């Protein structure tokens, strides 16, 4: 990683810290999912800055710590766009910047229905050393990560990823089902995957006082995700799968903390993934930019 790029990443970090302490707080109402998506988009004009870590165990190799920064902007009430920066540290190896992703989610129906579809499209520009496991697709397995960073970085991946998110809310519960199809823009077959999630706030009614530890500020859930093979060999053979309980804590100050220990469900999976993340919403970011550009006030 060049020193210039390090400087830029430091800049992002400083802006994150600065904005977190200086901008007006808005209580986020986030679900605890880290891999699965529900149908709720970012509020229009708001920017959510997020940082996530994944600590993964590796049999026959070195454990790793993968991380990503995420900038999620509500362009409209039906369209959210996100930009990601990914990196990882493999213990006893090295720390590398592994690429970026640009994601868009579009709500397909205007009103709330029993099942709410959202269309997702993402472009990924990353190296083969990417270990964030933001999704599992195709025949992704634990042994893919045995390659050293120096070797893995030689692979350059341009990928388009499509998802159909089907999400429902019933009596305080959210249930979501994501199906995934990804295509490396080089000559590789389509790969498939899935993510399922269920979550619920610990209390459905809000307390009539401002509080940090009230049960309505906590959302507990579980997610399950894995690969479904590729165009030539669709199915569960040679795929990895994970089950991960998850908890989100929406703080009054506008921060959200998430934690999710994940467990591999078969021999192709990493035995254990410890994920956590922190995010903060900046309200009215679109208006700020508009003012900056001297546009509509």
């Amino acid at each position: 990683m060049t020193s210039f790029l390090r400087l830029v990443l430091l800049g992002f970090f400083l802006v994150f810290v600065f904005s977190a302490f200086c901008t007006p707080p808005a209580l986020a109402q986030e679900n605890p999912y880290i891999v699965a998506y529900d149908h709720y988009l970012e509020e229009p004009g708001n920017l959510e800055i997020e940082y996530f870590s994944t600590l993964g165990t590796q049999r026959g190799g070195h454990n790793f710590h993968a991380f990503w920064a995420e900038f999620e902007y509500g362009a409209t009430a039906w369209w959210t766009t996100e930009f990601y920066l990914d990196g990882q540290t493999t213990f006893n190896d090295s720390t590398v910047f592994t690429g970026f992703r640009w994601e868009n989610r579009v709500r397909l129906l205007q009103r709330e229905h029993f099942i709410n579809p959202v269309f997702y499209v993402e472009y990924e520009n990353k190296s083969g050393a990417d270990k964030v496991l933001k999704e599992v697709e195709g025949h992704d397995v634990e042994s893919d990560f045995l390659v050293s960073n120096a070797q893995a970085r030689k692979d350059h991946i341009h990928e388009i990823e499509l998802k159909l998110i089907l999400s429902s809310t019933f009596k305080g519960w959210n249930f979501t089902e994501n199906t995934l199809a990804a295509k490396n823009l080089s000559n590789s077959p389509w790969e498939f995957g899935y993510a399922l999630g269920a979550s619920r706030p610990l209390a459905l009614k809000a307390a009539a006082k401002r509080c940090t530890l009230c049960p309505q500020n906590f959302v507990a859930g579980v997610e399950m995700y894995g690969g479904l093979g590729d165009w030539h060999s669709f199915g569960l053979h040679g795929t990895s799968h994970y089950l991960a309980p998850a908890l989100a804590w929406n703080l009054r100050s506008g921060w959200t903390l998430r934690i999710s220990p994940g467990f591999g469900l078969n021999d192709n999976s990493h035995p254990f993934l410890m994920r956590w993340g922190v995010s903060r919403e900046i309200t009215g970011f679109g208006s700020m930019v508009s003012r900056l550009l001297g546009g509509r006030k």
Partner: protein
Amino acid sequence: MKAVAAALATCTLFLAVSVVLAQSPSSGKAPAAAAQEYDPAIYAELQKAPEKARLRANPLRNDPHAAAAGAILFEQHCAECHGDAARGGKKGPNLRAAEVQAATPGAIFWILTNGVVRKGMPVWSKLPEPQRWQLVRYIKSLGEPAPAEGSPAPKP
């Protein structure tokens, strides 16, 4: 890689300046004292609620804490667009307007649940149903006569 780094540098600068601008006192909501005028068509969204939804009664209408809890929820989720005192902001209409206060609790609940996505109001079904009813109770309380001195009043 240099192009990516340059793009990231631009983004960082852009974000930093935007956030600094956000600190200026002029940012944010409309003045609380004066209610803004809105196109009456905005309020016509309330009429789109199906009859069954419109007729739903607020299950928390007799809950003495519902309006106070709703006021806190309003401050956390709605004030950004509708203004601190619900008199309207740059993005959201005045909720003290006669059209809103005349609407049934069920109609307001229906708007909260479904949003007005094309006009910029997001779907709020991510708030559990009881919290949406608490918000409805608070919004309806804005049209009630001011409480006598000394009694607790819901205030966002």
